[in-house]
């Protein structure tokens, strides 16, 4: 499910996401997201992930992103933003802030 402002939108394959969307998955659901900088997410069950910030210029590859994971699991393959801009791809958990330096990693938050 996607929470856009106060509106809940069912998540369907191929759906376009917007900055500040919150993605929520239930116990049996998982989903994948591809971003325009070619970074990719896999979101596990029982997760709440906010696309807090995303800026990317597909000509200059300048950009920055901030994803907030409040609970659940999130696997990330970083893309052009992390590749071209140092520490510009960030993930916030309730207790810390992470910066990706060109890599694949998993963040888990258990409430």
């Amino acid at each position, binding site marked *: 499910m996607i929470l856009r402002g106060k509106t809940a939108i069912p998540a369907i*394959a*191929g759906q376009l996401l917007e900055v500040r969307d919150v993605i929520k998955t239930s116990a049996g659901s*998982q*989903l*994948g*997201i*591809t971003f*325009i900088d*070619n970074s*990719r*997410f*896999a*979101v*596990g069950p029982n997760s709440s992930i906010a696309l807090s910030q995303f800026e990317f210029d*597909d*000509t*200059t590859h300048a950009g920055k992103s901030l994803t907030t994971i409040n*609970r659940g*699991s999130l*696997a990330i*393959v*970083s893309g052009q933003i*992390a590749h071209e801009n140092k*520490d510009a791809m960030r993930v*916030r*958990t*309730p*207790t*810390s*802030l*992470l*910066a*990706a*330096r*060109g*890599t*694949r*990693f*998993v*963040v*888990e*938050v*258990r*409430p």
Partner: protein
Amino acid sequence: MRLWAVLAVCAALAGCASAHVSLLTEEGGGAGAVVVMDPATGAERGELTQPNTRARLGGEQVRARPLKRSFDKLLAVMPPPPKIYTLYFIEGTTQITPDSQATFDQLRQVITPESDVQITGHTDTTGDSALTTSFRSTARSRSGPPWCRTGCRWATPA
């Protein structure tokens, strides 16, 4: 004694959020790094640089430990990397070369209504750069490929 004290605090707060970060090998082998920072100050607390290591988040220090679990189930829903198709134009025209026609045909076969297609134009270094820029930004992109009706994003070339 100290452990009990921590547990008691967690219970009082109705459960501490427990967070971990795990660094995996990159899809093409090797690994980058994940830097852990203080959320308030941005000060670096530490980093994971070795693939298949894991650290708990929230403390002042980042201690990398061997990763003992797999994330196969989660990674099964990771989208595949985007495919790149490079098309060449015959110089001075909006016609693609015969070789690129084959690439273009392959591209047409894999595109579905769910596909997101991003097109970036580049030029070679011959000719007058002002003229090429003008040509590139008008003739080719404006005419556009005939199959691209919706869902195509046009990037202004660098």
